[in-house]
């Protein structure tokens, strides 16, 4: 439901949601295959050390995973910081009343069976009741939320993602799960994550504002199927983007099928592509299109400084260079024009069959020492805004060696505050090199197009920040 303005009591509730000292799980189950059992199991397994109060009149007076069970929220001996609600839809209304009676700070309604199945009236009644009683809730129809920083895995996510500084706020549980999995494999470190579900009460504006204030968050990444309070959304984004970049996928915009799928999924009405473009431009959001781009761009923004000039690409492969240049063009970016003394220097490394022009083609003959000299020359040149290092391993080009060089030089020239992006294309050795670099704070990708997408996002955010100034 729409909100007229950001509500302070909701922001307060969100602080409790991500840092709860006590959690009630309403609908806690004794059966290991049920969500209500797994919530408690995952909380404990992943390291949550606060109090847990299982609530289920059927399971009273037993224990669940060693925790004493309470009949209802009214019987829980203290007001809880967070009430997780995993009961059938027809009990949610009465459970919400019990939560208000308990004095719970915020609710997380996992239950489905509301707006997404056409029961908007049911959802609205509950929302009105909760708003009248200043009891904020997230959901319904969602996956959960959490933070690796506080070891909080609240919902039915299989594991916690890698710890980091990106906040993911997603209307889709399935995509959130994908990103949590990709976080571990592709080294996207998260500060927090949340599924929003139907956004009956709390929506994007308040989550964005909260993430904007969160000390662990440097980048905010949104998956959007529909926006309810556009004005507040824009206002919240504008307040945040001068400090932290926001990236977003707007889904369900490409086809009628996509729109109807969004409506069935979370009951959302998606805007058109053009409307989103306009809205994101106004709000200062960087738009991405795919799951993979979402991750790639978030990694770049979370790890690297912003470019203060144009980019140079150093590669040993003509083909990867051409694909990268095509992608630069598609994204409206102008790579650096290499000339004068820099061109002369690069000619020494590229040799007679390579190219000293951007992309700098060191050719397949390039060994790691040549890469080192070329990268160092580029990074230390004041004309260069950022460096893209592309590697196509040959029998004389060792991916691991070059990755180590990129890392060493990034440390050496840290004071210059220039972004460096890696791009190792090929097999397992490239996967390992990309991962090794990401573990050391340098975004690195398997494909030139993905690397350029990340570069474009850095440039775009640089432009957004420039405008804000």
């Amino acid at each position: 439901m729409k909100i007229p303005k950001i509500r302070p009591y909701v922001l307060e509730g969100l602080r409790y949601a991500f840092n709860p000292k006590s959690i009630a799980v309403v609908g806690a189950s004794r059966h290991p295959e049920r969500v209500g059992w797994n919530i408690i199991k995952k909380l404990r397994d992943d390291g949550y050390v606060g109090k847990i109060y299982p609530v289920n009149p059927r399971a009273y007076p037993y224990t669940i995973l060693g925790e004493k069970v309470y009949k209802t929220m009214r019987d829980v001996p203290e007001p809880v910081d967070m009430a997780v609600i995993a009961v059938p839809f027809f009990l949610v209304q009465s459970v919400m009343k019990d939560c208000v009676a308990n004095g719970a700070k915020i609710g997380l309604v996992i239950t489905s069976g509301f707006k997404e199945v056409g029961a908007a009236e049911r959802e609205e009644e509950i929302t009105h009741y909760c708003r009248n009683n200043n009891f904020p809730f997230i959901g319904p129809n969602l996956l959960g939320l959490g933070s690796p920083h506080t070891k909080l895995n609240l919902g039915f996510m299989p594991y916690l993602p890698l710890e980091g500084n990106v906040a993911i706020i997603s209307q889709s549980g399935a995509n959130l799960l994908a990103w949590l999995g990709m976080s571990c494999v592709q080294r996207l470190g998260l500060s927090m994550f949340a599924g929003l579900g139907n956004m009956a009460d709390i929506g994007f504006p308040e989550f964005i504002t909260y993430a904007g204030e969160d000390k662990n968050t440097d980048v905010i990444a949104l998956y959007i199927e529909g926006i309810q309070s556009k004005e507040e959304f824009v206002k919240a984004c504008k307040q945040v983007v001068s400090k932290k970049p926001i990236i977003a996928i707007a889904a369900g915009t490409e086809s009628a099928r996509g729109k109807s799928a969004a409506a069935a999924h979370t009951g959302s009405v998606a805007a058109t592509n053009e409307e989103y473009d306009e809205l994101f431009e106004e709000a200062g959001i960087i738009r991405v299109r795919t799951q993979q781009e979402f991750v790639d761009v978030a990694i770049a923004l979370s790890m690297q400084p912003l470019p203060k000039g144009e980019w140079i690409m150093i590669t040993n492969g003509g083909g990867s260079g051409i694909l990268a240049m095509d992608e630069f063009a598609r994204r409206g970016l102008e790579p650096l024009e290499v000339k004068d003394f820099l061109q002369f220097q690069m000619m020494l490394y590229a040799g007679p069959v390579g190219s000293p022009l951007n992309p700098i083609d060191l050719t397949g003959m390039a060994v790691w020492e040549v890469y080192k000299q070329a990268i160092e020359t580029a990074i230390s040149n004041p004309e260069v805004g950022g460096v893209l290092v592309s590697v196509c391993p040959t029998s004389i080009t060792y991916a691991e060696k070059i990755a180590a060089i990129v890392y060493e030089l990034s440390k050496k020239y840290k004071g210059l505050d220039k972004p460096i992006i890696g791009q190792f294309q090929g097999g397992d050795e490239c996967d390992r090199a990309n991962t090794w670099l990401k573990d050391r704070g340098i975004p690195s990708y398997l494909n030139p197009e993905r690397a350029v997408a990340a570069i474009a996002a850095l440039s775009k955010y640089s432009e957004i920040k420039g405008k804000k100034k």
Partner: protein
Amino acid sequence: MTDKKEQTKEHLQQYLQNYWTAPSIFGSVEPFVVDYATDPTVGGYNIAKSAYQTRHDVFNLDYVAREVGITKDEIESRLKKMIDDHTIMLVLNGNVFAMGFSIYSWLVKLRDGCTPEQREEVTNFMQNQDETCSDIAGEGDFDFLLWNHIGVLDFLLNTIIKPVASFPQVENIHICPVARYVREEKVAHWWAPMGTTREFYITDEEIERFPEVQTYWDETDVKIYCALNKKRPVEDFFNFSVLAELSGLKAEDLKGKMKSYVEELPIMIPLFVPNWRKLGLTKHFFVVRLYRGLPTKDKFSIVDELATNPVWETLWQFTQGYYDIIVSAYKELNDIDKLRAQLRAIPGVEEIREFDAYRMLRRWTCRLDEEDGFWENCVMTNDIGIDGVDPKENELYPYGEYSLREEDK
């Protein structure tokens, strides 16, 4: 697709007038007449089931007070004690035949000389096997009575029975498909004689003896138990205003659904089941074999005749099993010798086997072992919705390391 309006039992089975065959499943109505397995409201029953432990007023307490002749407050107070003590449980028996299943019961006999530990081993296995729907443990000519709703027979044989049969202490297993589910827990079910479905049966003698054989319920509590189970309109069973208040759904909608499912079709039977083990009661079962040559109509007549006797707590008619009928009565409340003599006197009875049941492990996917902390823990078996085939035993899944079969991992 068949139009919803046409999905009545009568309409869907008109085709049988043109064929000599029986419906595709034993003693069944056409499957999927009603999709109540997935219907989210199920007439308010689920709301009551999920709330009655703390909101006793989900039931029509005015009705119970009138019936018992004491105040509503006292009814509520006594009901609270019965529920808190775990001596009674609200249950819905859904007609699984209407969901495309048949019911197969099976009797397990352990080898003579089994040690208590060997018996316990089998008992614990059955208690924890979630594919098992209902399960009673006992001793005598048989040691366990189990029953399952089954869509595909392979599932019963391979997933459910095979692991039990592989225990060395198991001597034999008799599978008895249920043709008529006539009575359970003293309440008449779907294939009770015409017009008697949902009738509650108890004798004056049983009512009189009940308070004498245990300490949880006094005479008034027994009256409450009887009143709760008495056949009556659904509005006398539940308080739909409270169900509406709890759920936010409309009382009239809830009542309408419930009337349709419970009174008109009827495919749902709400009942109150006593925790007979806790109440110190034993169920004495008679498993009856009739002469093979007995005409089917005579077998039906025998079961109809048995159904007139309120003493029976369970009454099912089997088909295509070694045995034909199973009945039970509470041992402490009845004269078992007299009942045995009555059964033996029925013309057509060839053989009777007996056993005492002292513990109900599971009933209709609900675990009942109170002492292990699983009272009323509903465990849905995983066959519903996937055609009764359990992937663990299904050879359609030879996916190597991605196989769901333990032995392939």
